[in-house]
């Protein structure tokens, strides 16, 4: 038995049919049907319905010309034909037409469109860019730290600020109207506004959506109510990154991009689960309805179509919202570590540590061997000292083989002993890691504040540190250097996080991610938003590196020193690694692809006994480069290649028919099944 209901939006009334089992009130779609994919949207971070019902706006961090020089951040219009025929993929008006060269968008990470056509772009470097009929302008400078979501509000503009862990409501001139969720929100991302003025924000760290209910005057409450909790069951979330609203009033529906559950969930206006869609892709590059790390979502103005931006896959998928629930599929499941590498990696001496962002586990490998041998695992999701909620930094004490793990979810750094005899054959030993101590970062901040040695030049109060990376320095590696995103500084302290020194980063720094310390005492910090590597000489002077040799740094995501003191920088936008030379030149290694010596979103770099390891995140693997930074291994957890596969650069030629990936570093890789070693 079916009954027909109608969802009314501002623009169009769209008829949908609900099954007899749908007893939800108010009516919401229960799932969605795949329509089409727009590919080659490098790092697409944000989507919004275009003004006037004309498709969607999609935002990519940068646009590059054919020679891989960055042109500008990019705003494109996706037009799709939702009237699909028998062959869905063929029925799509696929390609996105570039429309908006609206000037430099900075480092865009979220967009929203107002009814009058005005566009707001959240710039992660610390402001909101507004494009209105009267022209463009910026607001929020000096107020916002790291914007991560934006939505127009009747009182102005609601902006998520990751650094301050709050939502700021700015008026039209950029003045603060109110702040929401202080002390509640962990990592605010996408924002949406209900027609009564209530504000919803996805919290990636707390695994929920916060609702800040509006009073009668439309002003949202400063304190929010959480919808959902961590988990993979219906109504639970794992790192939600965006939220969108379908419909109005008490009968609206809430759609949530549930990133690490690889799905979109649909809730009713009260936050009750209605349905979900987007079966987890089993390997990278799988699409056609299989969602992989959904970053941003938007609903068309007629309420019929939803677009999902998947930065991980450089694509956006389009869906038609439907009444029928999605048939049971493969549920999200994480069993131990499975190569969902996060951006972090660490190696010291003979040990290698990698983090799996989906299971929140850290794997330890013997780095001396080819392939590295997986010996043990620590962590897994949880809240006690031996469990992790979001690993943000990894390091290994060179002398003591202690593993340092920063968990920004718990606000702590855990230090593990490894009970291991390196003279014996490596074996799997789950009793190897023993938690030695767990250090709360808020207590560390108190000690820093009280420290007379604190030399922070800024008058801003010291926040609880948010480690992005950790390194060791000094005699016997007795000093800890913490790259701190919350305070935009490097915290230099002792091994028990006693009082220390706060070394501010250069003012140009925006979102520092990776940290390397050279043998000569130099520091190098990769900042993908600032599009730079910041170098600090041993005497404490800073310099800014915006190119390596002739290659501009577009989205530098990892950095390390080579033995000769040269730098090597991974560039996620180029899908390549830039290798500097002692004479100041540089060469480029890699290019977009899935074979050996090709990358898809390369991240952190670390030296190891047999070469430098680069996290190849989008391919769920790492690659290793030996002397002269020549490739010598591609590996994931349990599958390795130490000879190049056919079609790889410098490898044997592909068998006929030619593998398009091997011959091109840009255009067709997205259509080729993953040839990497790891399952998704």
């Amino acid at each position, binding site marked *: 038995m079916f009954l027909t209901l109608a969802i009314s939006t501002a623009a169009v009334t769209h008829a949908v049919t609900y099954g007899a089992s749908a007893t939800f009130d108010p009516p919401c779609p229960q799932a969605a049907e795949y329509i089409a994919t727009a590919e080659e949207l490098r790092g697409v971070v944000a989507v919004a319905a275009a003004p006037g019902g004309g498709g969607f706006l999609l935002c990519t961090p940068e646009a590059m010309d054919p020679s891989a020089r960055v042109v500008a951040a990019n705003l494109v219009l996706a037009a799709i034909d939702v009237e699909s025929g028998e062959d869905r993929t063929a029925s799509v008006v696929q390609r996105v037409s570039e429309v908006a060269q609206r000037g430099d968008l900075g480092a865009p990470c979220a967009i929203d469109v107002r009814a009058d056509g005005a566009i707001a772009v959240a710039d992660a470097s610390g402001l909101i860019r507004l494009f209105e009929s009267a022209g463009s302008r910026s607001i929020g400078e000096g107020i916002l730290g790291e914007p991560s979501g934006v939505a127009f509000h009747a009182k102005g503009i609601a902006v998520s600020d990751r650094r301050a862990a709050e939502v700021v409501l700015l008026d039209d001139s950029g003045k603060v109207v109110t702040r929401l969720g202080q002390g509640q929100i962990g990592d605010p991302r996408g924002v949406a506004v209900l027609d009564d003025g209530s504000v919803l924000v996805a919290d990636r760290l707390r695994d929920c959506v916060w609702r800040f209910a509006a009073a009668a005057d439309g002003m949202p409450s400063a304190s929010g109510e*959480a919808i959902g909790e961590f988990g993979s069951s219906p109504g639970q979330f794992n790192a939600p990154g965006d939220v969108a609203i379908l419909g109005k009033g008490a009968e609206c529906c809430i759609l949530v991009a549930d990133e690490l559950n690889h799905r979109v969930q649909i809730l009713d206006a009260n936050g009750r689960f209605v349905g979900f869609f987007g079966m987890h892709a089993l390997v990278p590059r799988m699409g056609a309805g299989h969602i992989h790390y959904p970053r941003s979502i938007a609903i068309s103005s007629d309420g019929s179509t939803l677009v999902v931006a998947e930065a991980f896959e450089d694509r956006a998928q389009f869906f038609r919202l439907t009444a029928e629930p999605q048939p049971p599929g493969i549920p999200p499941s994480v069993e131990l570590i499975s190569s969902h590498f996060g951006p972090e990696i660490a190696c010291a001496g003979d040990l290698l540590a990698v983090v799996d962002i989906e299971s929140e586990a850290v794997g330890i490998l013997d780095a001396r061997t080819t392939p590295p041998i997986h010996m043990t695992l620590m962590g897994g999701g949880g809240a*006690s000292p031996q469990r992790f909620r979001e690993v943000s930094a990894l390091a290994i004490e060179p002398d003591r083989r202690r593993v340092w793990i920063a968990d920004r979810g718990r606000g702590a750094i855990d230090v593990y002993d490894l009970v291991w005899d390196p003279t014996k054959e490596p074996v799997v030993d789950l009793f190897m890691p023993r938690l*030695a*101590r*767990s250090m709360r970062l*808020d207590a560390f901040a108190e000690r820093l504040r009280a420290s007379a040695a604190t030399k922070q030049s800024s008058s801003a109060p010291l926040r609880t540190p948010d480690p992005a990376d950790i390194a060791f320095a000094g005699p016997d590696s007795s000093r800890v250097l913490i790259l701190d995103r919350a305070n935009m500084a490097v915290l230099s302290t002792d091994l028990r996080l006693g009082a220390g020194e706060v070394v501010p980063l250069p003012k140009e720094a925006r979102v520092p991610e990776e940290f390397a310390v050279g043998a000569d005492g130099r520091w190098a910090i990769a900042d993908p938003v600032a599009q730079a590597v910041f170098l600090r000489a041993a005497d404490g002077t800073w310099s800014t590196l915006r190119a390596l040799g002739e290659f501009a740094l577009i989205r530098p995501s990892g950095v390390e020193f080579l033995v000769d003191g040269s730098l090597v920088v991974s560039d996620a936008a180029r899908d390549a690694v830039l290798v500097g030379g002692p004479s100041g030149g540089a060469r480029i290694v890699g290019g977009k692809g899935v074979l050996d010596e090709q990358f898809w979103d390369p991240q952190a770099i670390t030296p190891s006994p047999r070469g430098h390891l680069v996290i190849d995140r989008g391919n769920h693997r790492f690659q290793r480069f030996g002397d002269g930074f020549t490739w010598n291994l591609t590996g994931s957890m349990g599958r390795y290649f130490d000879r190049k596969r056919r079609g790889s650069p410098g490898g044997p030629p592909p068998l006929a028919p030619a593998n398009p990936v091997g011959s091109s570093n840009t255009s067709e890789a997205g259509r080729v099944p993953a040839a990497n070693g790891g399952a998704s």
Partner: protein
Amino acid sequence: MKRDGIGTARRGSLRGTRARWIAVLAFAGATGLMGCGGESPSASTAPPSQADSSGASTATPPATAASATEAFLTSGARRGVSADGTYRVAWEPVGGIFSDSEPFAIAIEVERVDGRELGSDLALAADAEMPHHGHGMNLVPAVKPSPGRGRFIAEGMLLHMPGRWIVAIDVEEGGIAERAHWIIDVE
């Protein structure tokens, strides 16, 4: 079987994470009854590998781990030093025996190796997990102070299946929790 061995302390919980299973002790007043006394701490700053407080067969207390609180614990108590060598920790099941299928309580004693008084913000936590199985206990122990300096009772321990467990006691002061642990084989 819960994958997360600490019961309700699930990832993403919006409640205080450690508050549910840590007893924060207000020592003011109560500690005035107790002196540090006893043996002066020895140089038990064991390196990390030795700070593993026991080993499966370690029931014999280390020579340096004797305590001034023998009356609280028996000579059969498990003793050890926390991983960084800051605390001497001893514990035993109340009543002297484990129950392998029922919740039980353990008595715990803590003192600083350097002889200084324990801080007023001292917090203690007890936990157990089975690394081979990837889980911990099905209960969240409640740690309560017991009369006497550095003495605690952890109720709600449950080693619910046979196999090799790690029992851990975390001693927290100043935002730094240092762990002592013991390997226990449950038959």
